[in-house]
């Protein structure tokens, strides 16, 4: 297993939610694609999220207003759901230079298929929870 960056720390609170924004193109016909919960190689297999204390509305605002990206709304997975898939939830705010940033670490997952499947598992959990903030 790869060790997290020394500046980063594994999030231990299994009940904490991690917020993820979903791009409109990854939300066809109102269904979330597993691609929305799968990081890319360019992201070094780290899936960007924000921590729960930010709140779903503020998480949406930072993504769309501060960064100028698009989102259909804020979805979430818990740390427990992350670890159930043999992934890690990492507080890497300092490393990323972005307050409240957390990443879901896919680096331990070998193979495209396994990563796609892990993304599917997270997507299913997030979809079951429902959208936590949707713009008016």
């Amino acid at each position, binding site marked *: 297993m790869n060790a997290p960056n020394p500046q980063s720390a594994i999030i231990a609170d299994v009940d904490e939610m991690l917020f993820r924004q979903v791009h409109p*193109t990854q939300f066809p016909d109102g269904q979330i694609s597993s*691609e929305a919960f799968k990081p890319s*190689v360019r992201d070094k297999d780290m899936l960007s999220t924000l921590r729960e204390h930010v709140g779903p509305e503020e998480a949406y605002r930072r993504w769309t207003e501060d960064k100028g990206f698009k989102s259909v709304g804020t979805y979430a997975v818990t740390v427990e759901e992350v670890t159930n898939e043999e992934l890690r939830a990492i507080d890497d705010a300092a490393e990323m230079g972005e307050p409240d940033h957390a990443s879901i670490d896919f680096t331990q997952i070998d193979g495209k298929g396994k990563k796609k499947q892990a993304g599917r598992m997270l997507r299913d959990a997030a979809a079951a929870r429902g959208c936590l903030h949707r713009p008016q």
Partner: protein
Amino acid sequence: MPDQADERADAEGVTDVDPDAEESTGSFAFFSLTGDRFDAPGMPADTAKEVGFFREAVLSVARQLWLDANPGRSRVPAGFAEAFDLRLTAVHEGSAVPQLHLNKSQKISDQDWEEFVRFFRSAVNVIADGVNEAVEAQGDVTSDEPEHAPDSVPVDKTSSVGVLKTPAVVASLRKLGSTLDETESIILGSPLKSGPRVTLDHHARVILNPKLDELGATQSEQVSVEGVIVEYDGSTQSFRLEMLSGNAICKLAKDEVALALVARDNLAVDGISAADVVVVGETNNPAARNLQIFSVHSIDVVRSFAEKRLIAQLEQISALEEQWLGPDSEKPSKDTVERVRSLLPTLALLDVPVQVVPNSEGAIVLEARRGILELSVAVEPNGEMFMCSDNVETNDLEEAQVDFDGGRLEQFLKTGGLA
């Protein structure tokens, strides 16, 4: 086919032969187009539709005559319309005299044929008599509101004019001569010189259709328009077509039962979710933003709703900018978009819905759920594709990284198998 003597007689408009002779030639009706345009051999192609309008009018009147003769019946017998197989076999000079013959299909029994033909022939005479009567009375024979007809025009169904007042007949009569200019006429009626005939000159046509002059157009032309059917009215056999710019109110040609079903089946109840169709019919003003199309005789689905949905998803993807999902995210290349676009018509036909989504590495991913299998194919920018079958119950995975192959991709989404 008529012999040479009959052809000469027809050409001169002198078909004064006895009924038996008429039967032997098969000549169904006298029909002549007069005016400068019709002096040359043959007839202008754009006026050939007048023969079609004539057929429609005769059939419409024959139907009404049959219904009047069979009280209590609301429909003519099966095969009635099909039996009226009017053939244009030649165009004689003087001016243009299309030769119209009735063809008997093998499908129709002799008994039905004899009965139906009686009504078809009577219909020709009724049109000739009825229009003559109305023109002489200067009445509005085809008013949509019979109660407003002049007193001089009888409205009972026993009179020729009465039959001509039924809405379906009115609609069909109003088309006669609609492609002609003011100096041109149609003479139509019995094939027998002694039988009734009527000259439909401009004056008579205005009586048939008082709004003819107001329309400012005496010629209709065929149009073909594409759009989505957003309203359908079964009682008037009409529908509204929403086009990219403007609307068209489309009225089906008579007896187009199958076409009515096509229109209804492709109705977008929500105004959006239906196939794109191409409608072919006639209009008096093809330049209008909001078209009035009549005699619709063709509705073809050119793009299923499933395909439109996929196209819309791909269009969203092709509009992405670089860094659309973060600093390192890549938009799909044009080649990748076009590679996927070429698959859409086939993917739209699959028995499971397919979704098209981008990933941040510049790939376009096609996803489908087939039972317990979640299937995905990432069409990658390097010319390869990654196929993955994920069993959501057992979490068993099958995957393959291969060169892009559209046929194999389609087969995978169709069967769920990688082989």
